[in-house]
């Protein structure tokens, strides 16, 4: 086993996903299959190989530090499930 049901539960917590018992079972089996498949990468010796993060490298995409138009508060809030005044509302964070 590459990953246990308990680890699946932990990873789901890290990803902020509530999962059902049924999903936990299914994901454990499927993630095991996928991770076993991925194991074949270990056949390759990659000692000293530079990792590629972007295939076509662009560095320091700077622009002049000038204030440009932005979409504004009301447009930013327009899609919010719950907004009041100039703020996004969320359920309470601390008891």
């Amino acid at each position: 086993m590459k990953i246990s049901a308990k680890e699946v539960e932990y990873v789901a917590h890290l990803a902020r996903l509530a999962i059902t018992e049924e999903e936990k079972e299914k994901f454990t089996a499927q993630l095991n299959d996928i991770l076993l498949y991925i194991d074949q990468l270990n056949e390759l010796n990659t000692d000293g190989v530079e990792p590629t993060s972007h295939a076509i490298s662009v560095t320091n995409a700077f622009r002049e530090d000038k204030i440009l138009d932005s979409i504004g508060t009301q447009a930013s809030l327009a899609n919010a499930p719950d907004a009041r005044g100039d703020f996004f509302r969320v359920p309470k964070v601390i008891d």
Partner: protein
Amino acid sequence: MELYQFTIHELQDKIKNGDVTATQITASVFSRIEAVEDRVHAYIRLMKDDAFAAAARADADIKQGRLKPLSGIPIALKDIVCTRGVATTCGSHILHNFVPPYNATVVEKLLEAGAIFVGKANMDEFAMGSSTETSYFGPTRNPWDLERIPGGSSGGSAAAVAADECIASIGSDTGGSIRQPAALCGVVGMKPTYGRVSRFGLIAFASSLDQIGPFTKDVEDCAVMMNVLAGYDPRESTSVNADVPDYRQFLGRDIRGWKIGIPREYVVEGIDPEISASLKNAMAVMENAGAKCVDVSLPHTPYCVATYYIIAPAEASSNLARYDGVRYGFRAPETRELLDMYQKTRMQGFGAEVKRRIMIGTYALSAGYYDAYYKKASQVRTLIRKDFEEAFRQCDVLMTPTTPTPAFKIGEKTDDPLQMYLSDIFTISANLAGIPGISVPGGFTQGGLPIGIQFLGGPFEEGKLIQIASAFEKNANLEKRRPAL
């Protein structure tokens, strides 16, 4: 012939000659949609009123002698590119009510070129899938066989072009999501070089792999679309500031003396015999046109899918962290406190495939596993990239099948994610290497399903791809067929 059946360049000629108006073309496309859309389901949302208003504006422009590159051309947009004031769902419940406050750069460019937007095309949820079955809004069907998938993730965009429900369309390609559905639906699809087309306003899946590109009915239209889409965008930090040629100049040019590499690792066991036969046929066509097919090796090909299924989910798990029910989209009702709200929103908002990939990615990036998975995959990615660099020293372009099999049946692979992932085996490498690729129709199976031929080129060699694809299209002399809808 009906107007909806023509290509961009044919319709533009008709407009130029005063034979048709943008409004007539738009009406023709919407009459086609009315006739076939309930069977194909290429669209999540139609933009009929906007389309006719845009057509009226185009006609006014044309009357004053202002014919733009896409004046009067009805185009579908994959529902992953943001359209101001028009819901953009990414095929997901979590964004089902999201109305972007801005347009993607490609949307701005298409508008400026005179395009008419028909609607937002269906797709796998967050572009994660190879069949368009993971869409929250239900699957799209392949116009050539309604029991089969159109490919994915841009399945709606490909099916809309194949079914004549638009003249051309926009898709995005992270591991083959333009080329694979183009092949399975019998149309032309191009994934440009990473950085060639701005992704500003493209909803992110895997940021080091995602790229926007066109679906068209022929190679000439692909060149027309690329002329509009390509170019530097200061709003997109991975956009590359390189010259953009006029892609039309590459059409119909001679390819005599070109070396076409056939990667031996792509002619593998398990590939459908009719697909192998179509590649053999394509090699004969190219040899007849004066090119030479040479054997090349991309030795790390067997590791592409494994590499991709670490890198793409890792980046996705990070990109999709933003869907938390706070600023936009769906929020789960009746939650106790903030953490509970996050977890329930994401549980109810995402479908199974998206959750699966978030889980793989989160696991691969979690403490203790990063080196074993993400770092390892990024190193193998370097080896894959170098394979291509080496191959392009020996040939001008590469030619491969686009897919290992023709379109499979709806439901055939939904219970086996790994089998689904393997359907992208020939397309994933181009995204990992950042290079451009094009899929062009290469004939049909005996059962009447389209087969695609893929050409791959070095970075920023889209022109070369258009040249070779146009030579193939001209010399293959394939029978013109339309799906019997």
